[in-house]
């Protein structure tokens, strides 16, 4: 019988929720700056998805299962199938639809899953400038399924319209809008936050509340979202991490707690 953890932290819940979205044998890509995403991939590989394939920066399928400083991008390259796939190789792989799953942490997200990691405010004279999108623009178009996670579910992050579309979400109100535009990926699937898990309506593609984390209320999520969320007909409580998952996260994958970045504020 599954034994659930009773002392998990919110970052661990988010890690486990993302890990559950990865199916065995799938090909997952992850950038370098998103420790929590990496922890979720390594957790999936150590539990239900032993055959997942993984591109970590330029290393193809490195075998590491620990993101401590001994497992920096450089050091894991030696265990890869290919040590330095250059950027054209990575772009090729993604355009050709080889990547099943990608996850990232945007600064803003809107009702249709458009994400912003570029700036807040006016394009020419923003109030805040972020580091920019790297490949987020591209993976949101070409990876098969993408996931977003946000450490703080607030009205500033969940907005009616993002200030800058770095990554394209769904096409408003159009069931097959992405297909019409020739976009190969299915777009954003789930948004995992410190409060709950959101999905998108199959027809209108508007964001929908799918589950509420233990101890959080539906009202709390609605109050912290800057637009009207659809409430799923089978709204559930989020499944908590298991004892095994928490043990793997804390003691094997991320003993230094790098996953807590921005969750620990």
């Amino acid at each position, binding site marked *: 019988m599954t034994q659930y953890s009773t002392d998990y932290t919110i970052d661990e819940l988010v890690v486990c929720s993302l890990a559950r979205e990865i199916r065995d044998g799938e090909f997952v890509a992850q950038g370098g700056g998103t420790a929590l995403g990496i922890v979720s991939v390594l957790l999936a590989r150590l539990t239900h998805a032993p055959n997942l394939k993984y591109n970590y920066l330029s290393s193809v399928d490195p075998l590491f299962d620990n993101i401590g400083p001994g497992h920096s991008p450089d050091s894991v390259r030696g265990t890869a199938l290919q040590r330095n796939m250059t*950027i*054209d190789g990575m772009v090729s792989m993604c355009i050709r639809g080889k990547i099943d799953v990608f996850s990232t942490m945007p600064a803003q997200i809107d009702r249709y899953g458009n994400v912003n990691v570029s700036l807040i405010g006016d394009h020419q*004279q923003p109030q805040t400038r972020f580091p920019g999108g790297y490949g987020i*623009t591209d993976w949101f178009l070409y990876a098969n399924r993408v996931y977003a996670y946000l450490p703080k579910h607030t009205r500033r992050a969940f907005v009616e319209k993002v200030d800058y579309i770095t990554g394209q979400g769904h096409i408003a109100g159009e069931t097959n809008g992405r297909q019409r535009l020739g976009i190969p990926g299915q777009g954003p699937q789930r948004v995992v936050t410190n409060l709950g898990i959101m999905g998108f309506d199959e027809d209108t593609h508007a964001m929908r509340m799918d589950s509420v984390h233990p101890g959080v209320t539906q009202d709390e999520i609605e109050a912290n979202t800057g637009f009207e969320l659809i409430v799923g007909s089978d709204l559930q409580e989020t499944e908590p991490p298991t004892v095994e998952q928490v043990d793997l996260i804390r003691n094997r994958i991320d003993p230094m707690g790098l996953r807590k970045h921005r969750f620990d504020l």
Partner: protein
Amino acid sequence: MTAKLMTLEEATQLIPDGSSVGIASPSVGPVALVPMALIREIVRQRKRDLDLYTPIMGLEGDLLIGAGCLKAVQAFAFRIIGQAVPPNFRRASIEGTITTREESEFSVTLGLLAGSMGVQFIPLHGYQNDHLQHHPEWHQFTSPVDGQEMVTITAITPDVAIVHVPKSDPEGNAKLGDTNDLNVMAAFSAPAMVRGAKRVILTAEEIVTNEEIRATPDETSILYHDVDAVVHVPHGAHPFGVTGYYEPDLEHFEEYLKAANTPESFEEYLKHFVNEPTDASAYLELVGVRA
């Protein structure tokens, strides 16, 4: 000295005010073939209105922005060795004194690939984000193959590409070292941008003979026919490190970030590290490097 072998001062004169300048080997982390000595000379010569093309903009671009050399910058990321948003860039963005053309990994890669092959553009489906409105060189069109809407990712062909290399001969036949040791971006972009650029300046840790290049012809990554100027600058990437030559100077990165935090302390930095040293070796003495 051949016509291509010249001093930093001379090479920098090949970059007129208003040029587009591409950094062919951008930094991802602190080990990178960034031509920092040339960047400092650009500041010293008070170049103005440059348009910087660099896949990832780090300390080198931030220095140019802080010194007032740039009118615009094009990149898919703005980060100093994978960490902080560059302070002068952040300030100039908020004040509106720099034009930013953000793009993505795909658009940079396909743009460089088009430039490298000499073709006008490479078409991409579905690219309809906010980058688009900042790139007048990208045109939306209907595919003549299947009628779908597309965008031209137009070739990236800067007026001048600059790159630091471990070894070059006097004609510009150059080795980048084991490309597997380069960062994921530079291993592709260094040879690609050099091909696409209208003019190319190399700075090199070592000048070797043509015979030495011919002795290991599998290691030649840049060919003379694409190169206009070659400058011998040992430790030319400092504070970045160069594989097989020297480690990055991480303390200097910290010092830079601290200094760039306010315009006043950055002015001090510029004066002390860029304008006052009479030449590249005076700089190296100042930062405590034995050339």
